[in-house]
């Protein structure tokens, strides 16, 4: 699946997008965040306060308990500040 990062999440992880293939046990957004944090200090840092991180699956907002089973594109970003 494809991961996208925006705003300071992108700055902290150091990339805008990447393809990942998490193990079968990673079933939800929350579990995906935990898996990402174990990949290195830049992910550990970006997702340190995971409760403020927002997520979208296939361009729709989802909660951290959402299943990622059918996801093609998952995005992580801070609370939005448009308008």
């Amino acid at each position, binding site marked *: 699946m494809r991961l*996208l990062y925006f705003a300071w999440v992108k700055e902290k992880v150091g990339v805008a997008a990447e393809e990942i293939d998490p193990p079968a046990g990673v079933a939800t957004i929350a579990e995906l965040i935990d898996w990402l944090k174990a990949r290195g200090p830049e992910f550990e840092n970006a997702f340190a306060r995971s409760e403020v991180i927002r997520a*979208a699956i296939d*361009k*729709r907002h989802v909660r951290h308990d959402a299943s990622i089973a059918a996801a093609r594109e998952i*995005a992580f970003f*801070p609370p*939005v500040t448009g*308008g």
Partner: protein
Amino acid sequence: MIRVQQEDFDIGAEIARLRAGRTDIGAIVSFTGSVRDQSGEVTDMTLEHYPGMTEAELQRIEAEAQARWPLQASLIVHRFGALMPGDNIVLVVTASEHRDAAFDAAKFLMDYLKTGAPFWKRETGPGGARWVEASAHDEASAARWTKTEARC
């Protein structure tokens, strides 16, 4: 109708286009949001967004407003990219037979857009650049529309 664009918009022209040839509209409300310099604290701003999701969210928010109020027309235009103090950021226009629907729908669109549309502001000032923090007030403003009593 929704549009996401880098270029500026013309408020008067957008309103004129929305009502062109119509004689059934009684009330038009427009909201324009623009970059504030905040007493010199902001010299410029960059608006990042999530192409594709932005359009989908704005369409969803507009459809929600259309379902809640008897709107004759509505428009959301949101810019992205590099902006300066005084520049336009967002335009919302609502048209209805009566003013309450137009006012409430415009306010709703702004409240929902503020908490749902995937935009992020990065401001630059004398002290450097920083990502704007989301406001708890905006979350509360959006939440008031989910109460059964419809308003406030």
